[in-house]
């Protein structure tokens, strides 16, 4: 077993207690292209952290690295979730350890109905929200439960993808652009849901292009720029800091 990383080395990691999620000096590659170039950050339990940055900054790559997907390969670094070393795990082990990812392209499984997509999420314990409860959250999905998942409209697919993550009992929710393609009313709805589950103790990392919205919801913000962390601080700080916003977020 590896010894837990000593975070005192990192100046900007003020926290003394080990954080809920800590990512330490993570380097990720797609084949030979070097994308995430050594990032470290902590997320505390119950926090919502907004991960922001331009297209191609490496946000998705970061989430995928944390979720331990085969591609990108994490060639160096450590990831700890609630005292469990994610960096030693395969993606399904990480999922069992309590990680849920809503991928940016939704990844509805072809050939399966809406309900089967949800059922699939509840095969491997721990099981989270019941399917019934998820239908209450997204009534649209209940209506379409026997339709093949991939024929749903774009927004409906997004709902299904989020619902699928919640169908498992997770500790950390990684959302990759969850608002994309959703009608403003639904975005409001999801935002409410996120607040709700935050109250219940869920820790969330939210990647979003709609930075203002994300920052209004988030406690903290991390801004990525070409695979490195350009800013790590409170969300309010970003909203106030004109130059930061202009430089990295163009808002």
């Amino acid at each position: 077993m590896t010894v837990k990383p000593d975070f005192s080395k990192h100046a900007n990691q003020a926290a003394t207690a080990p954080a809920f999620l800590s990512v330490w000096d993570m380097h990720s590659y797609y084949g030979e292209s070097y994308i995430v170039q050594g990032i470290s950050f902590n997320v505390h339990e119950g926090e919502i952290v907004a991960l922001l940055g331009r297209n191609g900054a490496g946000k998705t790559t970061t989430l995928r690295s944390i979720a331990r997907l085969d591609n990108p390969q994490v060639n160096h670094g450590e990831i700890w979730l609630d005292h469990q070393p994610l960096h030693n795990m395969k993606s399904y082990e990480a999922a069992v350890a309590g990680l849920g990812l809503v991928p940016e392209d939704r990844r509805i499984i072809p050939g399966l109905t809406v309900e089967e997509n949800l059922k699939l999420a509840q095969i491997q314990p721990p099981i989270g929200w019941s399917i019934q409860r998820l239908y209450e959250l997204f009534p649209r999905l209940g209506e379409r439960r026997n339709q093949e998942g991939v024929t749903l409209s774009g927004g409906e697919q997004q709902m299904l993808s989020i619902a699928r993550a919640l169908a498992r009992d997770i500790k950390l929710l990684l959302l990759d652009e969850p608002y994309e393609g959703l009608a403003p009313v639904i975005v409001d709805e999801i935002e409410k849901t996120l607040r709700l589950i935050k109250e219940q103790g869920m820790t969330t990392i939210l990647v979003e292009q709609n930075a203002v919205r994300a920052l209004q919801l988030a406690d903290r913000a991390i801004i990525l720029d070409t695979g490195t962390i350009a800013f790590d601080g409170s969300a309010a700080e970003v909203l106030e800091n004109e130059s930061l916003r202009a430089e990295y977020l163009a808002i």
Partner: protein
Amino acid sequence: MGILEVKDVGKRFGGLQALSDVNLSVRENTCHAIIGPNGAGKSTLLNCLVGKLIPDTGSVMFDGQSVLGRSPHEINQMGISRVFQTPEIFGDLSVMENILISLFAKRDGAFRMHAFESVADERGLQEEAERMLDEVNMLDKRQMHAASLSRGDKRRLEMAMCLVQKPKLLLLDEPTAGMARADTNNTIELLKEIKEKRNITIAIIEHDMHVVFSLADRITVLAQGTPLVEDVPQKIKGHPKVKEAYLGEAA
């Protein structure tokens, strides 16, 4: 008389009436936005215009000719180009080649047996493609494999592929979803410019109200498969029904 005339179009999927009695008229050199809740039938409507789906009832006239019963490539050759909700590009080809294919299609039609010419000799098209890539800020990525682009870049590429064909009518299904704010703004500028300078009519589906209100000359709100209202943007913004069904508190 608009360049695109949709009359009484209806489409059923099994038990679901996805579209009913849709009437729409898009005038030349305007930007017409279609908005509406998720699953309202916007993408379905678009699919009926480009030959991906054949409506059960009604007629679709483009430029005085019916598009019904024509195959997608014929419709494209009539002057309609489309950007998909999830990017459809030639992943195995380079960015440059993606654009070149569009140019060849524009120049040579649906099929031409140019087996003994050389791509490298097409200086004119090469330059045109490079100009286009420059316009969408992707010139530096021209030799990249399209599949390894980030998602936002894929969208921009797809849009460039459509624009370079100088279509009469450009259909955009959520073109800026997942695009960074800065690029969204660029895209708005780009679309504005092409509408004004290049005489391209645009029909756009978007959930980003910033985009919709900066671009659209007219807006149709679709709900549950039928147009709810159609009007100029200012009117739509304040419309109570629209607010309730779609915009929520965001407006």
